[in-house]
């Protein structure tokens, strides 16, 4: 390749590094890069300049609840790993069944102390509502004494003969929440959970009319509860 041909790639290189090429252009550039030592050298040389860009922004202090929510989710996820592995070995219990339980646990989202609207709590304490979003559904647990109220929003209308059932996991055991959930016209439903002590996960499944003794399908939304 002569110098003139190479100028085109040199011109594209900065745009490539800044993420300003289209996917097709990126693919084309990377094919060239693979075999071009000159461009590889330039990429290496420019790398510190690129890395300086995110460092150039004005420092903002992240809210403490971000750390709290993140670590709640991470700890729930970390705890779930050995349990899921153990369940796989023993093939026992719905929640720990690999096809269902592990995926549900890995997807568990806990947003501790998340501020709901303006004027919400900043502290992330145990009395703050927990909110999670999954499959387009919003689930909020509002603590009240020893228990709480579970609110669901953005629910789809259920097929005929189906209801929603909420479940809690306490000390590794799955328990049904007595009242079944039926979405109203606005796609909202709620139910009370009498006792939240020791509960580390709340989930909702779709069940046949009348509910089930144990969950029969994948959770449509799952929430980890920080201990």
């Amino acid at each position: 390749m002569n110098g003139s041909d190479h100028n085109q790639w040199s011109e594209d290189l900065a745009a490539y590094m800044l993420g300003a090429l289209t996917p097709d252009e990126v693919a084309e550039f990377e094919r060239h890069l693979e075999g071009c030592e000159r461009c590889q050298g330039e990429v290496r040389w420019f790398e510190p300049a690129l890395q300086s860009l995110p460092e150039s922004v004005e420092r903002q202090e992240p809210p403490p609840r971000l750390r709290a929510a993140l670590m709640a989710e991470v700890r729930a996820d970390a705890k779930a790993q050995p349990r899921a592995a153990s369940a796989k070995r023993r093939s026992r219990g719905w929640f720990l069944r690999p096809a269902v339980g592990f995926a549900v646990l890995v997807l568990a989202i806990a947003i501790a102390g998340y501020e709901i609207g303006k004027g919400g709590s900043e502290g992330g304490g145990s009395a703050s509502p927990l909110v999670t979003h999954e499959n387009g559904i919003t689930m909020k647990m509002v603590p009240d004494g020893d228990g709480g109220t579970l609110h669901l929003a953005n629910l789809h209308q259920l097929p005929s003969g189906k209801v929603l059932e909420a479940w809690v996991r306490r000390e590794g055991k799955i328990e049904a929440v007595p009242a079944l959930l039926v979405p109203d016209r606005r796609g909202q439903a709620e139910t009370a959970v009498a006792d939240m002590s020791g509960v580390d996960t709340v989930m909702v499944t779709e069940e046949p009319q009348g509910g089930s003794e144990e969950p029969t399908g994948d959770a449509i939304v799952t929430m980890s509860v920080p201990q």
Partner: protein
Amino acid sequence: MAVRREKAERLADEELMPLVGRKDAEAFEVLYDRHGGAAYSLAYRIVGDRAAAEEVSQEAFISVWRSGARFDAARGSVRSWLLSVVRNRAIDFLRSKAGKAPKLDFDDEAALEQRPATERTEEEALRRETAGEVRGAIGNLPGEQAKVIELAYFGGFSHSEIAQMLQLPMGTVKGRMRLGLEKIRGELAEGLA
């Protein structure tokens, strides 16, 4: 088994990553404490909204937690990898917001004219709020070079979009990007000398 927090604090980022890959929450917590501020600041700089920056930061760190094993030390530092994850998430967030284009930090009337009035007002407010944020290496660049780099890196615009916005030939946009990066790189090299 999880390493204790004190032990994790003594480890370099590159030593923490294998632990994060093995789902060690303490190692991850140390990583967040070291880089969470920079990550949130970058997310805020790109999305221009605190709640959105929080969401983007959380998604990015969870992605790192779940894909920690994919970090390749040969391709750069943990911090730069992590910030690139944040940047990508933030740009995706902007793109997912239909009709809500990234904010600009420059007096770019041509670009603003292409947006609805409500968005312009929002952007004006954000722009004023964040005026003067650009600093360091990029802040020393000639305006036209800083502008194209800003639009690409913090705005997520492609070179052709930038060319259209600024009514410039694409070659000029790419040339300014290169000149800008060269200048930043040169200043960094001088600083090291």
